């Protein structure tokens, strides 16, 4: 009892999809890091990932992923919690994403406007979804799925994500097992 994985709780927020867990719990036994992982702390990479995250979860009436420092978070998680194989995919994904932008709009992702970014990432999301659907467990993961999962995980466990986009109470002080349910404005963070 209460022996539920922390990551499952994050999954609960996201409707049962266990975001990130497939990576974090994968059995890959590499104890080395991919070369280039250190690049994830470079300001231009952080800024790039911030914009990717913000395009996935933009500021609306509540803050977006950039306000949750999502670029920095993605870098930390990829560096510390990803296998070497997944790190390589993620790092290459940064240039893959730019290439896709070049191909579609003739400009890099950072030079594209918000509408173009959304259009591009919508395409990439459809691509990762189709790929993931038929992918065998041993096949490589799709870089955009990683970016999307990390954005969702990072945002909804961040302060602006949990307390402004969602509802969060650190100390409930009570438990009511029979509470009338009426649809509210915001889901609970935990």
């Amino acid at each position, binding site marked *: *009892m*209460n*022996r539920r994985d*922390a*990551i499952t709780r*994050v999954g*609960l927020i*996201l*409707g*049962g*999809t266990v975001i*990130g867990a497939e990576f*974090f719990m994968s059995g890959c*036994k*590499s*104890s080395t890091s991919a070369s280039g992982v250190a690049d994830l702390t470079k300001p231009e990479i952080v800024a790039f990932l911030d914009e990717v995250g913000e*395009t*996935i*979860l*933009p500021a609306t009436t*509540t803050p*977006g992923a950039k306000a*949750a420092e999502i670029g920095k978070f993605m870098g*930390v*998680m990829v560096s*510390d*919690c*990803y*296998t070497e194989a997944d790190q390589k995919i993620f790092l290459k994904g940064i240039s893959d994403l730019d290439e896709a932008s070049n191909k579609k709009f003739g400009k890099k992702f950072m030079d594209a406007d918000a509408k173009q970014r*959304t259009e591009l*990432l*919508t395409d990439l*999301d459809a691509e990762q979804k189709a790929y993931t659907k038929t992918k065998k467990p041993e096949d490589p993961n799709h870089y955009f799925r990683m970016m*999307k999962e990390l954005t*969702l*995980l*990072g945002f909804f*466990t*961040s*302060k602006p994500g*949990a307390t402004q*986009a969602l509802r969060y109470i*650190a*100390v*409930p*002080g*009570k*438990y*009511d*097992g*029979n*509470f*009338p*349910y009426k*649809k509210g*404005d*915001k*889901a*609970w*963070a935990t």
Partner: protein
Amino acid sequence: MANLNIDSVKDRTFDAIVIGSGMSGGWAAKELTDKGLKTLILERGRDVKHNIDYPTTNMYPWEFEHRGEMPMAIQEANPIVNRCYAFHEDAAHFFVKDADHPYVQEKPFDWIRGYQVGGKSLLWARQTQRWSDFDFEGPARDGFAVDWPIRYKDIAPWYSYVEKFAGISGNKDGLAELPDGEFLPAFPLNTVETYFSEHVKSKYSNRHVISARCAHLSKPNQIHIDQGRVQCQRRNLCQRGCPFGGYFSANASTIPWALKSGHATLRPFSVVQEIIYDEKLGKATGVRVIDANTKEAIEYFAKIIFVNAAALNTNLVLLNSTSNRFPNGLGNDSGVLGKYVAFHNYSAHISAEYDGAKDWTTDGRNPAGGGYIPRFRNVYKQETDFLRGYASGFSAYRYQQRPWDGVGSSLKENLVKDDLSGWKVGSHMMGETIPKEHSYVALDKTLKDQWGIPQLKISVDYDDNDAKMKKDYIEQLTEMFTSAGFTNIKASSDQRAPGLDIHEMGGARMGNDPKTSVLNKWNQMHDVKNVFVTDGASMTSTSCQNPSLTYMAFTARAADYAVGELKKGNI
């Protein structure tokens, strides 16, 4: 040998020594100091002071660098402890890391340990169900292990005694197989848990779904306030250590209580090498400790010794305490020390969905975890092709299915809106296992730890009875779920090694006959009357109920007996 001058010996002499400061050691310390004994509490790890040493207790989710996940390098370096459900960023500092304390797995065994003041009482899942005569009479009725030297009536008043102090929430359910206790108000079942409870009651005369009984202060009494503990705030962050003392831990309760008496001395970083036996006196005279930091050997002396090092480490200490009189381990005339180790089988789960009760949800969090289904198999008589039975956890929660296609504001809107789907329900198995002679721990002949103490070799496995019982659990729960109208029922069986249940027991079992057991009915060594073992090592069989409450009750009972014997001059 160091420290031989007389003053120093006096400084190192106590009325009682307690080896271990966790679930049962804390109780030994409290009881012995309450009775005025000058008591030395030895703990192999560091001190963890209530509140002061809970570094993560008030952290928000976003304050954890990896939002709870363990970095890959730590996971890879710690394959054993990484399998534990609670080994995450918020509590990893309370777990033993694999490389620091190696042991030998003759068969796979995930040995999960907490080496600090409070031990694993900081980390436990806090489930507290009494055992009954269906448990204590089990070995004699079903012909395994040896007969327990006690019955429920012997331990019942001591259950009451420890429950009042620890604070146990629960309902008086009136079930013979799960005796009622001294309860604070129960945490309620939720709408669907209640539905399932009522359904099961209507369909099966002998099956019950009750509120899990747990060591939480749902409504504290004065005795809990006196400990400095207040009401459980339903944070469900227990494994971090609770600033409210909302659940029972040695750190929040028994250890500070013992220290407040003025009779206790707590010595952390004290790795017990062996218990010293004096052949002329025919009893134990003290304990040899290795300081974990300086590696200096120091001897402490006392009239009585309580061994509460946690089940398998208690075996290790006793096996390593050899003398001319006891060449095979202290108090081991019987030859059974280290043998008849058993555990709980947690390796099956079942999940499903329930499409009703959509006008209801829950508010806040339930630290009890939901429902508990006491054992219903082979209770009054043998009725299946396996011995004994299993208890089951049962819980239900509302979930939200969220489409997470696309990107942008519509995705965000889908993810943040409050639009709950149906309910998910789940259960896990907690099966009794049979202690057998060939399920044992022993000292490795060559490998030693960093203090020169032999490493423990563990050889424990599942058996055919466990496999049959697991099959029955899956069949019965599937039937109960189906009958309740649950859908999408998925049973799963994992390949976990024994140990991950963290309910390992036995090795220094109690029994009536000194030829076949290590301890008598008072948890007192048959062969060394001033040594008492009151942790999991003393268990003759495992029941299927969570064991901690029973360790507490045995400890308080044994301490009362030991002090009485000391006063009478018998030990």
